[in-house]
């Protein structure tokens, strides 16, 4: 897929990347509108937490080295605290009296220079949650109508179709049948059970799976069948667990999406939702979307693929025919590691399926972000170059493992996959990239 090179022009010393959504959105702003919207959000949607964060930050810079943007670029505008300085500090200081140009830069910072990976919360002595502040900035931008075009398109798709990729209802069901047929060539009695009421598990995926990576549905079906799981997939909207509205700042839409998802699971009377290898979707279902609906924890138990694989291997429900031979390393995705602590379970599965596992450093909760998550990759081609060059530290991290012989990077998250693909290509790292499901599918004993 060829993508146009980023158009970058210099404005007041900071490179501004052209984006139709941001540029046209800003053109419609007036200082009065900005002030009104900013104060509405600050007054109605934020409170003590934001104040405590702003008052506690002593500007010490201890968060700097937490951020892959800063570590890669060594430009002080990219430290986590600097991102708050370029957004909310100024806004709070001026009580919303900021210019449209200021909002233009603040939007670019919040949407394209922070992946909301929350690594910096682990490096700040006060535990200041910069991701929360960037989301607050995005919320303001959403209400101002200043959002990057590409990610806004996915949010529109969510609103119109309840999935991220404009997949129509019949296309969705067709895709399931198509993947079932494909899989039946390998395993003749394999089924993808659709709309099976009372199944144990509803398996849910993100919009891009039927759109671009349909073979993942095939693979998941093979794994679930081999494990003898009682599972189903819905034929109705609500099948998509992804959520770009969460990242554009459209909290109302985030809540609607999660409501649809949970209600679909409830309608099918399943015991729990098992989701594919996606990080942001897990964050949406387990952490943010449920809260937007007023659920402290998800109303239907949610199990991420990594935890489910662990469960299957632990119980001996999947047998390994022959372990994966090429040396592998593992990229820990933020939303399921810092977001759910699945790192040891993942390692258990990697060790069960691979001959030779070499850790990248840092790892587990301290792993560097892929620089694609948080909706950044969804902001599309205009910002691609920036996110790739802003993560040279990831390239260094992978490259250190290749020196130890690593040939395959396992990235069990869709956004991480997209981000790492670009990094591996740009920095000529010469490694393969796989989901953990790819490996399991490859090495498992398959029923005849």
């Amino acid at each position, binding site marked *: 897929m060829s993508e146009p090179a980023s158009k970058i022009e210099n404005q007041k010393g900071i490179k501004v990347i052209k984006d139709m959504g941001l540029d046209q959105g800003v053109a419609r702003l007036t200082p009065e509108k900005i002030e009104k919207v900013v104060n509405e959000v600050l007054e109605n*949607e*934020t*409170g*003590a*937490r934001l*104040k*405590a*964060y702003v*008052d*506690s*930050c*002593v*500007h*010490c*810079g*201890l968060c*700097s*080295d*937490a951020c892959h943007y*800063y570590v890669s670029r060594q430009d*002080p*505008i990219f*430290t986590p*605290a*600097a991102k708050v*300085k370029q957004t909310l500090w100024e806004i709070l200081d001026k009580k919303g009296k900021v210019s449209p140009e200021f909002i233009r830069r603040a939007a670019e910072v919040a949407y394209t220079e922070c992946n909301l990976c929350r690594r910096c*919360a*682990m*490096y700040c*002595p*006060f*535990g*200041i*949650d910069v991701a929360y502040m960037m989301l607050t900035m995005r919320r303001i931008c959403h209400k101002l109508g200043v959002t990057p075009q590409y990610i806004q398109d996915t949010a529109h798709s969510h609103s119109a179709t309840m999935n991220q990729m404009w997949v129509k209802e019949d296309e969705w069901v067709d895709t399931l049948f198509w993947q079932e047929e494909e899989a039946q060539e390998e395993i003749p009695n394999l089924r993808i059970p659709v709309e099976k009421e009372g199944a144990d598990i509803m398996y849910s995926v993100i919009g891009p799976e039927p759109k671009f990576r349909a073979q993942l549905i095939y693979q998941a079906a093979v794994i679930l069948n081999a494990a003898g799981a009682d599972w189903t997939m819905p034929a109705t909207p609500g099948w998509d667990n992804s959520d770009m509205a969460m990242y554009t700042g459209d909290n109302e839409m985030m809540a609607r999406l999660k409501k649809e998802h949970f209600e679909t699971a409830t309608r099918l009377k399943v015991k729990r939702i098992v989701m594919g290898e996606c990080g942001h979707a897990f964050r949406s279902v387990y*952490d943010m979307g449920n*809260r937007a609906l007023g659920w*402290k*924890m998800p109303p239907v138990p949610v199990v991420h693929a990594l935890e489910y694989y662990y469960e299957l291997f632990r119980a001996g429900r999947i047998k390994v025919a022959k372990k994966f031979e090429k040396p592998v390393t593992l990229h820990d995705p933020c939303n399921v*590691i*810092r*977001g*759910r*602590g699945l*790192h040891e379970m993942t390692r258990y599965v990697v060790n069960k399926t691979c001959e030779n596992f070499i850790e990248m450093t840092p790892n587990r*909760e*301290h792993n560097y972000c892929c620089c694609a998550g948080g909706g950044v990759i969804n902001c599309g081609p205009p910002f691609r170059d920036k996110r790739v060059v802003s993560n040279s530290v990831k390239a260094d991290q992978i490259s250190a493992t290749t020196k130890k012989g690593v040939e395959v990077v396992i990235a069990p998250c869709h956004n991480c996959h997209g981000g790492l693909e670009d990094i591996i290509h740009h920095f000529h790292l010469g490694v393969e990239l796989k989901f953990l499901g790819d490996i399991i599918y490859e090495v498992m004993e398959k029923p005849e």
Partner: protein
Amino acid sequence: MHTLHNLVSGPLVWLAFIIFIGGSIYKLVTMAKEAKKKDPLVYEYWDGNYAFRSILHWLTPFGSVNWRKNPVLTTVTFAFHISLILVPIFLLAHVLLWKESFDISWWYLPEAAADWMTLIVIFACIFFAGRRMIRKDVKYLTSSSDYWILAMVAAPFITGYWAHHYWPMYRIMYILHILSGEIMLAAIPFTRLSHMLYFVFTRGYIGSEFGAVRHARDW
């Protein structure tokens, strides 16, 4: 001079303590109330054990990954904060004042230790200021208020050390010592020095989220 001395060591002391204690209570109570109204999730997700686990790791020198990654800063910042809190409370001269005024007393620091700890505070402030000027990431974040805060913290220690050693103009320094100490105390609830009040809550909250919801470490 005498009147000035009486003013700073009498009514202003009371005023400073009233502003510090009253202001701190006011700030914490209004924050707690506002959080209850607008950020109820802070209460919902607060978990005493995980909050304590996180706070403990960060209050232990070299107890977090980031403390270990910055050994010089960690050493300086712990030495600074420990001295900053202990010296005013356990300095013999201060203990004697409490004894004289309210007939209560407690353990005090050996004179030499207090001297060294005072110097630690002063040099740590110089170190922090230097860091703000030299490190480009910190420089970018720094505004003039950051230097004012450092000056405000260093002032009572510089003047106190000066007066204690009877250097020239020690009488004026003595008055300035009391005055600057009062200013610092009164400023705690209303400036970024309030990180002293909020630390337990911001750290505890993220510790609760990481521990109880995300099952991950945050240090």
